[in-house]
């Protein structure tokens, strides 16, 4: 690079810096406003990003917990006294109350007198045999 190039560069740079310094106030004001807008937009963007970063794992965890709750079904516990399942079922049957008029056999309740007489005669017959 020769000296005339150096001189041209120097002069061009000086003019450029002078032009930068002598910007009209309206343009300078708009540039300041543009800077503020850019920085505010970035702050809003960062806040949204941070919120998403926190809420995303929380939401995923909640969804997983809900799914686990829906899939999980409790298994029946074995009786604590060591009884077999068959015995437990028999015990349950013994403890059951007789069905009500609505749930039981309707024929039984319609012919209740006949069944009472039949039961009484069966008992008498057995006593006679004995």
């Amino acid at each position, binding site marked *: 690079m020769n000296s005339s190039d150096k001189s041209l560069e120097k002069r*061009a740079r000086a003019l450029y810096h002078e*032009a930068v310094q002598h910007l*009209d106030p309206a343009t300078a004001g708009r*540039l300041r406003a543009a800077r503020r*807008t*850019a*920085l505010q937009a*970035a702050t809003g963007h960062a806040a949204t990003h941070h919120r998403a970063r926190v809420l995303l794992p929380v939401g995923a965890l909640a969804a997983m917990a809900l799914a686990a709750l829906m899939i999980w079904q409790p298994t029946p516990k074995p009786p604590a006294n060591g009884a077999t399942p068959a015995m437990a079922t028999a015990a349950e049957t013994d403890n059951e109350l007789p069905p009500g008029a609505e749930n039981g056999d309707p024929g039984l309740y319609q012919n209740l007198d006949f069944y009472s007489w039949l039961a009484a005669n069966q008992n008498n017959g057995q006593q006679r045999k004995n």
Partner: protein
Amino acid sequence: MSGVSAVFEAELLSQEGRAVPATLDGFLASMERRAFRMAEMHLGNREDALDAVQDAMLRLVKHYRDKPAQEWTPLFWGILRRRIVDLQRRRKVRSIVVGWLGGGHDDEGDELPAWEPADTGPDPLEKLHGERSYADMAAAVKQLPRRQREAFMLRVLEGLDVAETAQAMGCSEGSVKTHLSRAMQHLREELEEWR
């Protein structure tokens, strides 16, 4: 950081030379006027230049605020350069559309110059107290091919080193040297009266 301290930091920067402010506010305060002048010289229009600078600021803050401060300068010039190219392409498309619609020729059938928006900003000559030199230089720089213009403005006017200029222009360091050498040759011819 307040606007006043950002401007103060920018002033310090201009005194210290190549130091980069640690905050984005300070960095943008130090760049905004230079970026505007650069965009204005490329686009020749105040409003477009302001749009380009605002967009470049937004993109830098949004996408590169977490980068080390030393990388902001070439990144910012690179973003601004691409924005300027986008605006120039849009103008070209608009000129083509106007041409298709029959608006690209005068009454005698001669082709009209490519569409450019009217510049409503203050005349640079007024701001420089009637001095013609800046306007002459701006006109000569605007006549350069785009890549030569970018190399001259970033390397000579902004004082970026070859590596930073190459990063901002998205090309090799060898290409920067070639473009700059050709730009200087053109400018020597255009600005003959400067000698």
